[in-house]
């Protein structure tokens, strides 16, 4: 059970390992706070749709499961979109069309198809929560690096000294690709080191 939750955080991290949901990952991470909000919205959608899909999994005719999952996911995305617009107007404006686009984030349909449609509710919930949090963490890291180098701030707080020349490229699309590439590389290096240690111990 715990495994279902933990694997999304590191071993099967949606961004760094599975490389899923790249569109929001690259597009909205110009600032750490946008990464956080996108991550929270995605987590909400993946968790609630996984629960519902797991609950109805035995009633769903096999041939139409994908359209049904899509309708369920779209419903939760719309809920998230309206809630953000109603309560966090600024964030919703900044994220623009990327909130409705959570519908096509393959991370969510992937979890529905690969996990929630086959497993029980509790396990599906843990799996979705782990994946959502792993996604959120990755987006925050990406957003923080880009905000730090692109604006000298993290979460809006000045970190680097005044007079630091901002690397505008980091908040442009190119910066997203560069940062993501380096982070995936770094992730693999750390992962290998940890793995090596584990094998030595055992």
């Amino acid at each position: 059970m715990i495994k279902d939750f933990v694997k999304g955080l590191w071993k099967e991290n949606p961004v760094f390992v599975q490389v899923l949901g790249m569109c929001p990952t690259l597009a909205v991470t110009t600032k750490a706070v946008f990464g956080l909000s996108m991550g929270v919205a995605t987590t909400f959608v993946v968790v609630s749709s996984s629960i519902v899909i797991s609950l109805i999994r035995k009633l769903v005719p096999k041939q139409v499961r994908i359209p049904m999952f899509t309708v369920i996911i779209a419903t939760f995305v719309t809920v998230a979109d309206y809630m953000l617009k109603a309560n966090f107007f600024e964030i919703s404006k900044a994220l623009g069309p990327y909130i409705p686009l959570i519908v096509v984030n393959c991370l969510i349909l992937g979890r529905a198809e690969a996990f929630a449609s086959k497993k029980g509710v509790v396990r599906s919930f843990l799996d979705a929560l782990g994946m959502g949090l792993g996604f959120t963490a990755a987006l925050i890291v990406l957003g923080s690096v880009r905000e730090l180098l692109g604006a000298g701030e993290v979460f809006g707080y000045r970190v680097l000294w005044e007079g630091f020349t901002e690397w505008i490229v980091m908040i442009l699309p190119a910066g997203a690709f560069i940062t993501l590439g380096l982070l995936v590389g770094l992730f693999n290096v750390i992962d290998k080191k940890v793995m090596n240690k584990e094998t030595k111990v055992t």
Partner: protein
Amino acid sequence: MLNKISNALFKNSVLSMISALVIVGMISGYALVYVYKYATPKIEENIEKETKKAISSIFPGTVTIEDDKDMFKAIDAKGEVLGYAFLAEGNGYQGTIKLIAGADKEMKKLSGFEVLESQETPGLGAEIGNKAFKEQFRGLPLGKNIEYVKNRKPTKDNQIEAITGATISSRAVVNILNKKIRK
């Protein structure tokens, strides 16, 4: 138990597919009606609040704002009209830019503008929302077309200096305003 019910209900596979889709569609439709009912007034309130905030920053001292068809009247504490504000929009570098522009009460001079919505590049195009850029528009004559110059100080009274590295976004603002002024 659930299996038995579903088998009894959906013996025919085509029927079962259709009914399953219809049921899911209906449930999510109903759910969204309630979310919509809850959220819409709040969203409208947010948009209104933002428009009012923008008008107050174009006309400092605004106390009441009157909605007059497609324009807003900004009125100060003494009941005097400070100026009029108009909504305007047009294409930017990425997507639509929505602005609110203000004219003084004689309709002779521009009182400035505020960006309501834009998807310009952060750090470059998004600088059109920056105070230094916006202040250039305060007091421009409404009789002439606004022009922009690059990398030097404006020499005529109808010119503004475009943002370095964001000429397209600067030009977009100028074009949107010119189009609105002509109307």
